[in-house]
């Protein structure tokens, strides 16, 4: 087997993993703060892709879609938290999961009503069409852009969480919301913002994935399973875990696709099973909290 081919496939895997990282990150941040697993995360990913497509055709530019869709859908996420999820705090941990599962039904069917059941092609932005010569082979420009953008988003998120006052409040709130309230922080508003951020990340993942996959109402169901696998491998609530596991899953999928294409859809689940047998709390998870 040609080494350069393997390196190219590795790069493909990183691009695939980058979208997974962004999506899983939204799921894991929301869980880390609110203790809620958002079952509608996949559906919101799908709505993000549709919103990006719609806004891009409305404004005539992919870049407006990329910028506005996550903000718009993130705001919609805050509405969901405010109207629905908020009522379930203090109830069983299963209830938000069940509620968002019902919500995903509504969202998917809603998109079917508005945009139809068939897939819609998502055109690659003209600046990023074509391939780039990397010396060892040709690689799609758009995928390189996805890798770069995700790296920037991760850096901004990390700096915000670690170096700013807002990040301090968020981290402290994840540790002990009661103390934060005693200290005069309106934890409800923090939760609202975090849920919006999580949903916005799902939408960003959707827009980024658009030109790489076809956009259809069912695209979220596969993504949800993938995001679950990534967060379970990485450890629910762990940001580092989501990044490492997302890249791990992306790379394994594309390398396995090279050697045994029929195993490509199965490999990430096998990876998850192995990790669970060795470390039930995930690679970077904290024992006792969930496992």
């Amino acid at each position, binding site marked *: 087997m040609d080494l350069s081919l393997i390196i190219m496939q590795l790069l493909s895997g990183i691009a695939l993993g980058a979208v997974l990282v962004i999506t899983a990150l939204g799921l894991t941040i929301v*869980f880390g703060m609110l203790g809620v*697993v958002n079952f509608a995360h996949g559906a919101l990913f799908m709505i993000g892709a549709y919103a990006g497509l719609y806004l891009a055709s409305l404004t005539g530019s992919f870049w407006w879609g990329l910028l506005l869709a996550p903000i718009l859908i993130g705001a919609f996420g805050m509405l969901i938290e405010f109207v*629905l999820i908020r*009522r*379930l705090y203090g*109830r*069983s*941990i*299963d*209830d938000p*999961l*069940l*509620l968002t*599962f*019902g*919500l*995903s*039904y*509504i969202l*998917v*069917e*809603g998109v*079917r*009503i508005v945009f139809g059941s068939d897939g819609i092609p998502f055109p690659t932005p003209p600046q990023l069409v074509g391939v780039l010569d990397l010396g060892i082979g040709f690689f799609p420009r758009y995928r390189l852009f996805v890798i770069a953008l995700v790296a920037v988003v991760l850096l901004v998120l990390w700096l915000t969480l670690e170096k700013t006052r807002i990040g301090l409040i968020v981290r402290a709130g994840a540790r002990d919301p009661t103390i934060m309230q005693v200290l005069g922080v309106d934890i409800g508003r923090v939760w609202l913002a975090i849920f919006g951020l999580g949903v916005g990340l799902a939408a960003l993942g959707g827009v980024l994935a658009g030109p790489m996959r076809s956009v259809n109402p069912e695209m979220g*169901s596969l993504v949800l*399973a993938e995001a*679950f*696998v990534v*967060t*379970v491998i990485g450890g*629910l609530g762990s940001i580092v875990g989501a990044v490492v596991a997302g890249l791990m899953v992306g790379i394994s999928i594309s390398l396995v696709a090279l050697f045994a294409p*029929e*195993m490509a*859809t*199965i490999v990430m*689940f*096998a990876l*998850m*099973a192995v990790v*669970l*047998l060795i470390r*039930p709390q995930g690679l970077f998870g904290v024992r006792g909290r*969930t*496992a």
Partner: protein
Amino acid sequence: MSPSSDEAVAKPSSSGLGWLLEQRVLLSIAVLAVLPWLLPSQALAVNVLIYGVVVMGYNLLFGYTGLLSFGQAAFFGAGAYFTGIAIGRYGVPWFAAVPIAVLLSTCLAAAIGIVSTRTRGIYFSMVTLALAQLVYYVALQASSFTGGENGLRGFTVDRINLFGFPVNFLDPVNKYYVLMAFAALAMWFQSRILNSPFGAVIEAIRENEQRARACGYDVERSKLIVFMLSGAISSLGGCMLALHLSIVPLDLLHYQTSGMIVMMVLLGGARSFFGPFVGAASFLILEDAISLWTPHWQIFVGAIFVLFVLFLPKGIWGTLLDAIGIGKARP
């Protein structure tokens, strides 16, 4: 759902009503026996029967043990596929194919259970969903066995021999009552589990896992066993579906089916014996009625489900039983 301080097992009562409630299996069978005449169509009644059994098996896991699995479709589908493959590919007679399929599905449940019962809480839901999706993709890839995307075909059971009497299985009434015998068996089995000391142990695990552990019960082993029992009962529903439809659609294994099972148990009422049948019936009637005037029935079902989670977490049957004051016996 929400923790409560109910007695772990309903105490036998000497009053007439109490005695009647003890006969939950017979009562349930009686209702199912007249079901084809209560519902608008025969086809609906058969589906209520099948999904009722599947959801009842799931209720053992979710309602009684408190484990929210999103992977029950794996066992529903496995029961159906194994039945179809045994009959169609290996020429096994139907009455042998069913126990073989249940046995194999229980082995699958053991494999998935070993991995998933190591995790707790929300992790369990995500892991069961992922592992069930693994089963889905394996069935998709192993198309020489399963028919892949087209589903499994070619194992029609049209004529069965019942203790020497030939029965035309294509006749919907005959089919209903043969399948009802399976449902009755499943109900008897489930009732026995719930009445046994083991039934008390799983409810203790739901109420307080630490305390159950402190009392000396092997929580992990009990979870694994209940996972397998639950999978076995749900897989019997899959066998019934295969015999009924003579095809097995691949979608049966998808996690949307698991989600539907979760919806049914919550609509009817988790932790009640007959609730799963009420839930299956409500869901299927709702689907039937709404899809008459719009293809987008899922949006309404989703909305109704959200309202149930918010305002009626005990479901139709559970709320009804509470209202007339016999909720504790949970028939």
